[in-house]
């Protein structure tokens, strides 16, 4: 591996940060899709130059963009590159923007209601794509997690999207409710050892797992405890903020819940708290070292009513023991008067020999570490608020 490419989604566009393996000198390209909210970008593990981006706007809705040249140029899947109109016999354009819940009798589930903030029932409505997850084996296969919570799949490189309706139709939907950011499906983990298994997470419903390729799903929230729901240990209703896995051990999951850092050793069947000595166990991001499956990173946030780092200090916490024992990592990070947040999809690790860690803040900084978190450096300081960070390790 000799290069890294950091994909940054922000409130006002996407940016691509590139460096060689030393990760000392960075090139910054962007903004791509200037002025649009870019909730997430992610590259295909099979074809790293193929990158998918979720572009959205409260005014104009959802757009899916794709690059086949590593982010230099972009197009909406189905639209020939550089063309504004296509011949009659080509795929109708605009289809890639179309996320319609599957209510068909054959494969769908009826549109139901979910719980609104005040406990009343509210109809399911599509808002945006929060997370795109390309397949580990097929460059044309990609999943999308959306708000209001559902998972969609494209098998043609993002041109057409179909809901895997078994999740929304699980039957517990009326007990799901939006978190502060909306009722979003924000985490999709693909099991490298079992193509039929996926884990997803929804704020605020909890984590779910499929073992049959997405046809049926079960809640995997046993062991979670949430005081904001009437039954704190209910089957669903938990505000899971993010879940991470190491590819070599897909049954071991780490979760940053609204409050509490959790761990499961059996693919979510049972969770136990591993918050240990963290200064606060509220937070959004969580990730695992590329080569050390027991090394985990979180960034504690003060509280659910004060979404900024604790004590005005930006500290990444690392556990080398799979949780419970955490050490603050501060070298190179601001340790006074810092009041940024780090959102749930805004941390990523590269797979260089010396594992790199990257995260972005709501203050527009993207920090990197080329030594597993021992020291940090700002790659950029003044981007729009960062919504997501992904990284690609390239030959």
């Amino acid at each position, binding site marked *: 591996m000799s290069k890294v490419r950091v994909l940054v989604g922000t409130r006002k566009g996407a940016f691509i940060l590139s460096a060689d393996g030393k990760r000392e000198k960075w090139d910054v390209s962007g903004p791509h899709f*200037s*002025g*649009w*909210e870019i*909730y997430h970008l992610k590259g295909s593990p099979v074809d790293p130059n193929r990158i998918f981006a979720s572009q959205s*706007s*409260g*005014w*104009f*809705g*959802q*757009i899916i963009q794709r690059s086949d040249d590593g982010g230099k140029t972009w197009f*909406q899947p189905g*639209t020939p590159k550089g063309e*504004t*109109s*296509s011949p009659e016999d080509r795929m*109708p*354009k*605009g*289809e890639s*923007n*179309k996320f*319609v819940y599957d209510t068909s009798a054959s494969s769908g589930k009826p549109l139901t209601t979910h719980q609104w903030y005040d406990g009343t029932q509210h109809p399911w409505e599509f808002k945006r794509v929060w997370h795109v997850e390309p397949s580990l084996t097929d460059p044309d296969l990609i999943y999308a997690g959306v708000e209001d919570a559902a998972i969609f799949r494209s098998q043609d490189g993002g041109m057409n999207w179909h809901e895997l309706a078994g999740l929304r139709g699980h039957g517990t939907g009326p007990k799901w409710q939006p978190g*502060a*950011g*909306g009722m979003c499906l924000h985490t999709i983990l693909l099991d490298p050892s079992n193509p039929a298994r996926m884990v997803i997470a929804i704020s605020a419903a909890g984590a779910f797992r499929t073992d049959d390729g997405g046809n049926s799903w079960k809640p995997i929230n046993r062991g979670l405890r949430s005081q904001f729901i009437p039954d704190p240990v209910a089957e669903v209703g938990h505000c899971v903020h993010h879940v991470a896995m190491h590819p070599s051990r897909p049954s071991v999951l780490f979760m940053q819940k609204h409050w509490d850092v959790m761990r499961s050793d059996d693919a979510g069947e049972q969770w136990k708290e591993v918050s240990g000595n963290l200064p606060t166990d509220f937070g959004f991001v969580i990730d695992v070292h590329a080569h050390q499956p027991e090394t985990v990173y979180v960034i504690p946030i003060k509280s659910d009513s004060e*979404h900024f780092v604790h004590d005005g200090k930006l500290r990444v916490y690392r556990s080398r023991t799979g949780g419970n024992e955490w050490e603050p990592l501060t070298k190179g990070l601001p340790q006074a008067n810092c009041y940024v947040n780090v*959102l*749930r999809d805004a941390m990523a690790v590269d797979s260089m020999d010396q594992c790199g860690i990257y995260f972005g803040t709501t203050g527009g900084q993207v920090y990197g570490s080329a030594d597993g978190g021992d020291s940090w450096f700002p790659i950029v300081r003044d981007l729009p608020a960062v*919504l997501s960070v992904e990284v690609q390790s390239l030959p």
Partner: protein
Amino acid sequence: MITVVLPPHLRSLAHVQGDVTLEVARPVTLEAVLDTLEERYPMLRGTIRDHVTKQRRPFLRFFACEQDLSHEAPDLPLPDAVVSGREPFFIIGAIAGGSGREV
């Protein structure tokens, strides 16, 4: 020819600069203009109207000849000045639109 003024984000999405001109079959209604626009620029499908219901997206408005046509029926014939090309048809992003939510 009908002149349509798009908001900047939709111009960039459609790869156009400035106003758009369209040949719209008569009768020139609100719906006919939007259908023609989406046919010519299919990447705009879903950005102005819902893909399925064809309802106007909530934070967009339609103006022409100093009138707000946002809530008019889709088969409303547009004013003669728009049909003749003397006045444009505006698609406007509502000032109060968008999302201010915490992610």
